[in-house]
């Protein structure tokens, strides 16, 4: 099984330890992913702004980097959603189709492909508020959605419940968007910041010490909001918690 690791650009730049944790976590399950060296980005920043033409070359580069693998694992629901659902600026060749189909977000890969049944090395003795990225939740269906009449389930929570000592807390608005929204955070700063502030307050009043998510982008935004408000929240990617980080 040939597995590739895609480390999204903002993780590469701002949260390298998330990429490292993802790599080490996969190795714990006997998978040694390849890291295509010329990888950059999935094209989402441009596509999110409507600029599909401007994303074309980046999408082409992505496919060149990741063609031929059985699985492409991404520690980001948002980027996975872009690749699987929105990578349409380029011609949909068989190669492109395969790359898109074989791309899995880390939680999905552990939950649905590897079907892992434990993280015996992991212990996280803290109160955790889990943040669902909207693309992870409503785009690639990480869990049931509060708006729908469907049986409750959550892939990330299923995984986190296997972590010793970890206590999940419940927010008043569990799957409300945090206001990051890609370019939204830049072009609509007023609402973006307000939504972020409401979100971190909700985490805090639920009693959370840590916020955990499968998406670093939302957490960078929320961290910025929490720091400004002086809320003592700490943010960790789910890969770090599952890989055994204790704090």
């Amino acid at each position: 099984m040939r597995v590739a690791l895609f480390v999204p650009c903002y993780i590469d730049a701002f949260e390298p330890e998330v990429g490292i944790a993802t790599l080490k976590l996969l190795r714990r399950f006997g998978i040694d992913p390849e890291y295509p060296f010329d990888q950059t980005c999935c094209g989402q920043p441009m596509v999110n702004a409507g600029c599909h033409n401007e994303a074309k070359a980046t999408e082409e580069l992505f496919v060149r980097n990741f063609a031929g693998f059985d699985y492409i694992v991404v520690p980001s629901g948002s980027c996975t959603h872009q690749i699987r659902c929105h990578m349409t600026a380029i011609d949909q060749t068989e190669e492109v189709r395969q790359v898109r189909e074989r791309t899995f977000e880390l939680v999905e890969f552990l939950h649905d492909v590897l079907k892992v049944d434990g993280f015996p090395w992991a212990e996280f003795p803290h109160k955790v508020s889990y943040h669902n990225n909207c693309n992870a939740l409503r785009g690639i269906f990480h869990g049931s959605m509060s708006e729908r009449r469907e049986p409750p389930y959550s892939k990330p929570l299923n995984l986190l419940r296997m972590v010793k000592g970890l206590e999940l807390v419940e927010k008043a608005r569990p799957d409300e968007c945090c206001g990051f929204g890609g370019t939204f955070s830049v072009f609509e700063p007023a609402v973006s910041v307000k939504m972020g502030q409401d979100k971190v307050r909700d985490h805090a009043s639920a009693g959370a010490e840590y916020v955990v998510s499968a998406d670093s982008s939302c957490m960078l935004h929320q961290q910025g909001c929490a720091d400004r408000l002086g809320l003592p929240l700490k943010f960790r990617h789910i890969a770090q918690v599952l890989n055994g980080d204790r704090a």
Partner: protein
Amino acid sequence: MKESHEQRRAKDGLPALLHEALGTPDDGGAKSGSGERLTHGEATSRPLQPPPPERQPRGAKVHHRRPVDHNEAAQRFIDAPRHEKMHDERLWDLRQKRDRQMHGIPEWETLRELASSIKQHTLAHLGDHLERFEAQASANGIHVHWAQDGAEHNRIVHGILSDHGARRLIKSKSMLTEETGFRHYMQGVGIEVIETDLGERIQQLDDEAPSHIVVPAVHKLRSDVAEVFARTLGTDPNNDDVHYLAEQQREKTRPLILGADAGMTGANFAVAETGTFVVCTNEGNADLSANVPPLHIASIGIEKLIPRIADLGVFIRLLSRSALGSPITQYTSHFRGPRHGGEMHVVLVDNGRSARLGEVDFWESLKCIRCGACMNTCPVYRRSGGLSYGATYSGPIGLILDPTFDRRRYSSLPFASTLNGSCTNVCPVKIDIHKQIFAWRKALAETHDIGLGKQALMKAAGAVLSHPKLYRAAIATADGALKVLPDFAVTNRLNTWTQGRDMPEPPRETFHQWYERTHGGEEGAQ
């Protein structure tokens, strides 16, 4: 630990308020005989009360042909925290009431599917259904008119009123007449128009557009209403008791209703099978408008058609549950013909709908039944207020309807969304709203209507991100990454990030550099 969890729940099992400050023991809302708080109609399931007066923020500043600056208006709304909090909590409460209704109906998702299929069918055969409706309604004694656009609609209605020498028209809420600029037109020709819905009347008296398609004055606090009524109706400026304000409006409107020459309503549905149109309201004002004056005119968008009476069983079950979280509106009235001695006219209005029908990506927006559920759930709408969109339709549905009316002015609106998708999930007719917002961004970028600066920025980002060497060089420096990654820091707008958030820490070493240095952690500190 269980304790803190329980604190997050109110007595009724719903998650507690996000804005605890708004919780109040009682606000005088109606109760059942056993003292339980009633929550039908548009009522909140918990009493909410804002602190004392704060000036109401006004809507987006409209400049001719310039794209609406939603962010600017949103900032002013957020800067009025009492208004913003109340608005957010109130609409979130409607969303939660909707959820409770949904959980009470096992076939909910099937009903949504049926509603969507019925609407798709109707739109795909709209010509036939409209002709059938026209034939049936005419046979029932209804006069049927057709209007290609808003101006023609206004002229037709004016003509009908002139034929009857009518000088005063009472009307119930209609988004279509907002589209056509109806009140403004009628003012110009000397016909008095009186809105009878409380929220719409407040907005009319304050010379402001409705901010929500179901609860038009939801952005106003009671203090704002007291100010408007004192100024326009002569009520006590120091009395902002909600019961007093509502009663004043009832008492002052009743004589106007009794003395009106004509009544006007919109319609929620028009049934091809029988030539019936259906009006759903809570206040009884639409039925007064229709049944008191001798002349009733109904303005109906051509997308309101449904084929069969039995289809109403699906739509009426969904409509108010989605809109307000109540099982049905207080009144659901079916008009199949003029009453004894009365006269009834229907104006079927196109106003851009037939053109939208031909747009592959956007025609399904015509399925909309104007319930407002997408607005109630939208985290952006709740925090910016409907007037910040500067358009007839606001919130998620507005983002996909407004650009069809004025592509340039509303080109900014599809960007007033995080694409979180909650709107699509609550839509009772399964419009893929967030996907259409996404598609609008693409359509606008293709015609260079998203702003040259933004597009140039994206082109620059695309150039860097598609070249590994340029990308590596760009993010190698401490703040270089911030300049390259448009997701959270576009070069010349860097300042917007830091308005209410701190910047992320600059990287010490990128993942790529770490991998290169350690060969993926195989050597060194594993």
